[in-house]
């Protein structure tokens, strides 16, 4: 089911519930077990990256209150399958657990496979080195023809509208992001908007509302002359499934309308968590003008 429909159905069911029932919540003490520590890989590369960045961390107890501890001194390599070109990523001296290298967009050829190899990982600290691998397919860029910002007074949001041709014959998966002056404002998983093309396969998407920016509390999120870009990001099915599962796991309705909780389907070998994915971005930039966009 397309993600937007999932959201619609869920919010409808919740509304139905809230409309008819009393419903109360209470913070409770809950003891949770903690599983053995595992490697976590956060490796999303794109055709617009200036640097390829792979973040390695450790899993943490669910109620940990800080960012997960980083994994240092690993060997991280990106390998282009067809040419066997290898790119070694170095650990950042300031951002612990972040491994980077200058981006090589020319290896991100649509339809080709890129491998990630992470070795020299000593998670247990006992000298036993682990190696983890993953592969990702490079998706095709789908050009975004245009974008619009529309202010919705009732919902108090800026609605981002997209205009593009969905390629026929193939199944496409999309993610949408909003970038303000080169800073992604819709960064976290709960802000990620994804859709497959089940509802519009092969059609021209003519100004469909794909993202929202809250305009209620902070009218100054966008100011005059801000460069506001909508990104149409072509993603692979496995990355779509990964985000879709995250949305199910962190949504308000879980687990009542989503079934039993389950692990999000990553692609890293050796029981590691996280995902390695390549995305193909196309964007359209708008110069924000409050006289036009705040009405």
């Amino acid at each position, binding site marked *: 089911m397309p993600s937007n429909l999932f959201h619609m159905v869920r919010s409808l069911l919740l509304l139905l519930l*809230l409309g008819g029932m009393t419903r109360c919540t209470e913070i409770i003490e809950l003891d949770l077990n903690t599983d053995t520590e595992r490697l976590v890989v956060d490796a999303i590369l794109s055709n617009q990256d200036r640097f390829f960045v792979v973040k390695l961390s450790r*899993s943490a107890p669910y109620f940990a209150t800080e960012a997960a501890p980083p994994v240092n001194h690993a060997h991280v390599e990106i390998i282009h399958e067809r040419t066997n070109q290898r790119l070694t990523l170095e650990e950042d001296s300031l951002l612990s657990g972040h491994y980077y290298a200058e981006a090589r967009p020319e290896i991100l050829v649509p339809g080709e496979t890129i491998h990630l190899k992470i070795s020299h990982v000593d998670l247990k600290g006992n000298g036993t080195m682990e190696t983890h691998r993953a592969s990702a397919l490079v998706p095709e860029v789908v050009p975004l023809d245009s974008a619009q910002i529309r202010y919705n007074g009732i919902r108090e949001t800026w609605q981002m509208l997209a205009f593009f041709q969905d390629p026929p014959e193939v199944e496409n998966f999309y993610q949408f992001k909003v970038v303000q002056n080169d800073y992604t404002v819709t960064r976290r998983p709960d802000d990620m908007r994804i859709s497959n093309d089940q509802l519009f396969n092969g059609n021209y998407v003519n100004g469909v509302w794909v993202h929202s920016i809250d305009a209620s509390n902070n009218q100054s999120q966008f100011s005059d002359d801000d460069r506001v870009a909508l990104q149409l990001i072509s993603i692979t099915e496995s990355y779509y499934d990964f985000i879709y599962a995250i949305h199910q796991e962190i949504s308000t309705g879980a687990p009542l309308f989503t079934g039993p909780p389950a692990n999000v389907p990553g692609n890293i070998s050796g029981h590691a968590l996280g995902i390695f994915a390549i995305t193909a971005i196309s964007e359209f930039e708008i110069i924000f003008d409050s006289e036009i966009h705040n009405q």
Partner: protein
Amino acid sequence: MIRYLLKIFLLLTSPFLYGQIPSTNGSVVVSGYITDAISGEILPGATVIIQGTGKGTSTNAYGYYSLTIDGEQTLTAAFVGYSEKSIPINTNEAELRLPIQLDPHTQELSEVEISALDRNEQRKTPLMGIKKLDAATIKSLPVLFGETDPLKTLQLLPGIAATSEGASGFSVRGGNPDQNLLLLDEAIVYNGGHLLGFFSIFNNDAIKEVTVYKGDLPASAGGRIASLVDIRTRDGNLTQWQGAGGIGLISSRLTLDGPLIENKSALLISGRRTYVDLFLPLSSDENIQQSQLYFYDLNLKANYILGDNDRIFLSAYHGLDAFYNDDARMDFGNSTLSLRWNHLFSPKIFSHLSLVHSQYNYYLGSTGDEIENIDWRSNLTDYSLKYDFTYYPKAGDQVNFGLQSIFHTIQPAHISSPDPASTLQEIKVPSARSLEHGLYYGHTFQPAPRWTARYGFRLSLFQNVGKGQSFRFDDRFNITDTLQHRRGEIYNQYFGLEPRAGISWLATPHITLKSSYSQTRQYIHLASNSTSSTPLDVWFTSSPNIRPQIAHQFSVGANYLSTNNQWQHTLELYYKKSRQAIDFKDHPNLLLNEALEAEIRPGNARSKGLEWMSQYTGNRITGWIAYTLSRSERQSQWINNARPYLSPYDHLHDLTIVGSYQINDRLTIAGNWVYFTGNPVTLPVGRFDFQGGVVPFYSERNAERMPDYHRMDLSLTWRETPKPGKKWQGEWNFSVYNLYGRKNAWTINFVGDDDLDAYYKEAEKTYLFSVVPSITYNIKF
């Protein structure tokens, strides 16, 4: 033609079964309908006993009995809430039509009194896990918002548990809710709930009785592996018009019934509608203010007595839930229509023909521009034909056989846009058509004094019929081939023999021992993997890839009836094993998916348990204590790393205490207390960071439990004093659900403010109801 076929059948089977053709020399076949002496309504399940022999029979679902006796004997007829009646038989005829009219108890006596005779008959039945509830018992118990609900009363019986707090959906012996066959006047009901399942669709005013069979099904029923809930509506008063109604917090209802032709034909009309929507404008939330939210039910029943040998019944039900706000519209509901004809080929052969149509559909629409403007429809339609015969060869002997065919059509989803220029692509998940047939035979007899035995079978045949499509999958459930089937083509079928058997032994006048085995098959399943089923769940049938679910159940038990007939204790042990039990992969896509089958990961299910119930029926105090100790597990090679995991409805301990005390003629107090081990749940064993947010991860499915659940409800019924000349009698019902305000967890979520600190999470339980008082005013006229 039918009479001819029947004769051949009986000729063929009788000598084989009994060694000889029954002689009528000196014997009399006494038969007829047992009815209420005042209203003329038939009384199903009433008992007729030959005095001094312990032999007897009970009336079938249509109030008919047939009993062969030797010459001059006395019959005693009895039924719950009615005075016993003894009738001496003295005739030279070989056949005697004996309609029996029983007088209902006056109000001074408890409404739920059960006579000893009636209980004796129940004890001897070689079926296990069967329980009957009448409308008066259901009405006397306190319920949420004062809305009397037969399905919630069932949940107070051992082995039957609500799927979640306040839900009318239920699990029997750890099975899925879709494994329960809900029949309303023989029509299958596909969604028994209103308002996300908080209320059931069955309006108690129109109901005569509810019988639940926990897996040990009579051969005449099939198609589900966990239980049969057989709900029969009232037939209507044949002698005078009467009415009943009520005004409650949530809904109002009105039932009228009376004769169309006195003592020949009666009509019953019953309606109920909620008015929650009237209060929505008072909400502080603007969104809710502009919403509409209601449901209604309409029941209609007509019957016509054509003569001694023929009766016709027409039942109809229509219910709808509707919800509208600025953004979305949703409605869903069931409709059923059953036309039934009872015919007596002879006093010993009762036949019953039924034609049934049932339907469940939903509509979902969202407003907005472009692609948000969606119309979404789903529809399930059944046509069913059943021809059922009962043959009464001699006292204590009964043969039941028949044939049933159901034609299912499921249109899982059709999405379109009201705007022809929309970007939206029309999606029509192809319809699935199928036929489900059952040929059955069951024989209950007394092989020796104090022994009653039952054996039978159901030969079921399921056929997928074109026009439709089927898939071939590789071993990773990827589609390798899609096959299109032309209209009328039978492209797949399953058949199987479902044997059923049981025996009961009256070991002492007080103790009965029973044992039974049954096999059942299920060919139609619900695509839902959450504990709160939603109106949007779709049904799907078995297919080349989805084999039928098959269950085997063994039970043994004992029943003790005290000397004064006031205490009845039952103890049952069961073991149930199911193959090809339906479960789903992680994060399945169950809506708008034409290859839904690829999401299914079948496995085995096992459940075992001990169910104990002690029921007390005094003059003023009635009630029961029910306790269940059980465990239900599932295992699938694709789920939970192939390790067994608990059913989401597993309750290790489940205890229910139900009581009702009639303080005086006008005042009755009733209450219940429910306790069970918290439902199994999957909780995180850690988390990982991804793109600035945290994501939970898990180890084993259903390895943890929710906090234990308990709750007490209380109600007080105050009847107004009857006054001479007053044409109606009123009654106030005050009830409190969850008397001591236990905050039972409905769900546990993990929350935090991601904008402040994405890493800080807390566990938050959601509970639905604290103390919920309600008041209802009921009238009878």
